[in-house]
């Protein structure tokens, strides 16, 4: 320890200026997200191999390692992993998007109402948020997906219910911090009704921090789908990222042909990282506080 030379650490006050920039990492992340989303949207029209066809090479046993024709290799049934991963993105991303959209609409509306009217509204809504939050998220997801048919809609709605309270709490806290500001008072003095104040004055302000949260929430939902897949509870039909990784994670397959698991892991990881990073940057750019009040 060099006690004599250095004093207690000094933090560069540069933070003030750096946080106001989104930075190159943000734009790289956004580009990656855009590419994945576009690929998923346009998958049926892109020149991709049929994700369910078996490309068996006579005389060789699948799975085939990555090569010129199969960029990510194939799985044990000689199905092309590259197109399976892209088609998997369709379900994984849809589930993530629907989930967070559901959270934004319901959580956002409840949070704004609670933050604006306070009193009993606030108490009841806050208690509902608390109950939802005290349920370990995965357990609730397990319960619903176990009881209902495992369709894409069920999974999306389940994850949507789970995202209501985290989004709602941010919406509530942001609303509270804006509800007493001068511009709200000005609108009220001009005779604006509650509904007008909420929609025209508060909503635009609350939407900005919620947008940052949406990216983080989508990452969480995509990961949650993967977790459900590992418990055998993901969407029953079609391939998802979670199901692809689960398929490759068996001991024999993992030992002999690791690419079957690692190709979808890589795409999932980069996507989740990009969503997290972009969301994080946005959040510090707009200085979102989760715990205020």
């Amino acid at each position, binding site marked *: *320890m060099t*006690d004599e030379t*250095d*004093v*207690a*650490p000094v*933090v*560069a006050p540069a933070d003030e200026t750096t946080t106001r920039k989104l930075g190159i990492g943000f734009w790289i992340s956004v580009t990656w997200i855009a590419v994945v989303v576009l690929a998923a949207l346009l998958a049926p029209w892109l020149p991709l191999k049929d994700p369910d066809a078996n490309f068996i090479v006579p005389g060789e046993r699948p799975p085939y390692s990555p090569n010129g024709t199969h960029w990510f290799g194939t799985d044990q049934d000689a199905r092309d992993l590259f197109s399976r991963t892209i088609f998997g993105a369709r379900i994984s991303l849809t589930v993530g998007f629907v989930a967070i959209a559901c959270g934004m609409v319901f959580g956002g509306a409840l949070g704004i109402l609670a933050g604006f009217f306070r009193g009993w509204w606030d108490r009841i809504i806050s208690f509902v948020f*608390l*109950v939802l939050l*005290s*349920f*370990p*998220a*995965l*357990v609730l997801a*397990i*319960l*619903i997906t*176990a*009881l*209902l048919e495992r369709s894409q809609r069920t999974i999306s709605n389940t994850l949507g219910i789970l995202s209501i309270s985290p989004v709602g709490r941010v919406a509530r806290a942001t609303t509270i911090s804006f509800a007493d500001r001068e511009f709200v008072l000005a609108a009220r003095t001009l005779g604006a009704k509650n509904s007008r104040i909420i929609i025209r004055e508060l909503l635009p302000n609350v939407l900005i921090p919620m947008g940052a949260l949406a990216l983080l929430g989508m*990452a969480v939902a995509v*990961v949650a789908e*993967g*977790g459900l*897949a*590992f*418990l*055998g*509870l993901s969407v029953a039909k079609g391939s998802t990222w*979670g199901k692809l*990784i*689960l398929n*490759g*994670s068996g*001991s024999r397959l*993992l*030992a002999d042909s*690791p690419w079957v*698991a*690692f190709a979808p*892991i890589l795409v*999932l*990881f980069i996507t*989740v*990282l990009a969503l*997290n*990073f972009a969301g994080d940057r946005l959040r510090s750019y707009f200085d979102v506080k989760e715990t205020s009040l």
Partner: protein
Amino acid sequence: MSYWLQRLGAAIALLLAVSMLTFGAMNLLGDPLFNILGPSAGDTETEEGRQIIQAAKDEYNLDDPLPARYVQWAAGFVTGDFGVQFGLDGEPPVSDLIKERLPRTLTLLIMAQMMAVTLAIPWALFSASRADSAIDKVSTVTSFMFIALPSFALAVIMKYLFVIKFEIFPLIFNAADPLASRLWQMVLPAMVLALPAASVYQRLLRTDLITTLQEDYILTARSKGVSKRNVLFKHALRPSLFSFITIFAINTGALIGGALIVEQVFIIPGLGSAIVEAILREDFPVVLAIVMIVTAGFVVMNVLVDLIYSIIDPRVRAS
């Protein structure tokens, strides 16, 4: 004192709400009679079929109204009687299954949290004392990546590296092995849970430490001649531990979810595999018991955090 009564009341209300929700959903959305008897639940044509159905209804009190069954179940649950399993003629009782599986999941969780804390505190002290240096930036990126990596993906990667490539850890958890080797078999799964948790703790603790290190009393201590190491450990660490404890408790809830998944990858017969098996069999008493245990654990953690708060910071007690 009234504050603690309030806390306790809220915790109990929450457990009641969760159990009613779960119990109600399982009985209304599912069909308990079908879960018990299988296809023969629809056999109302023959006298024999009707008798079987009536016997099952009597045994599981299915003719009672839902609230009565809930009260019956709740009364049993608090005395440690979790009912009987649906599928296997009620053998063994759910509580026996829980007694067998719960310790493994608990061990996994405790090991993971211990690893995470022992890793996170030195890591945070190290990076906070060198805030914004190159090595601190590397550690920030590392922790960010571990947080973004889902537990199942990390589990597959670790399994590939340490079980298949380097063959350091055994593949199979063997319940018949002696305690020491069973613990050894859990090290890798615990590590999968611990690494992201440690990253979360490190990020938070580092931020808190940096804030604390800018306080005046730190400068006073330094100018009195207290060594940098002592300032870090004795003056800065304790006041920085508050949000650490909160996130520790909150993260325990997330870890339970992670543990269920990691158990699946490493084939550990804990609560995770128990709930998956029970769901496949539609064995709802088991699902209900596990949901309640997990929720109760979560609630207890939250109350404990409040308690610890008031012990380490007397200001909380006053307000």
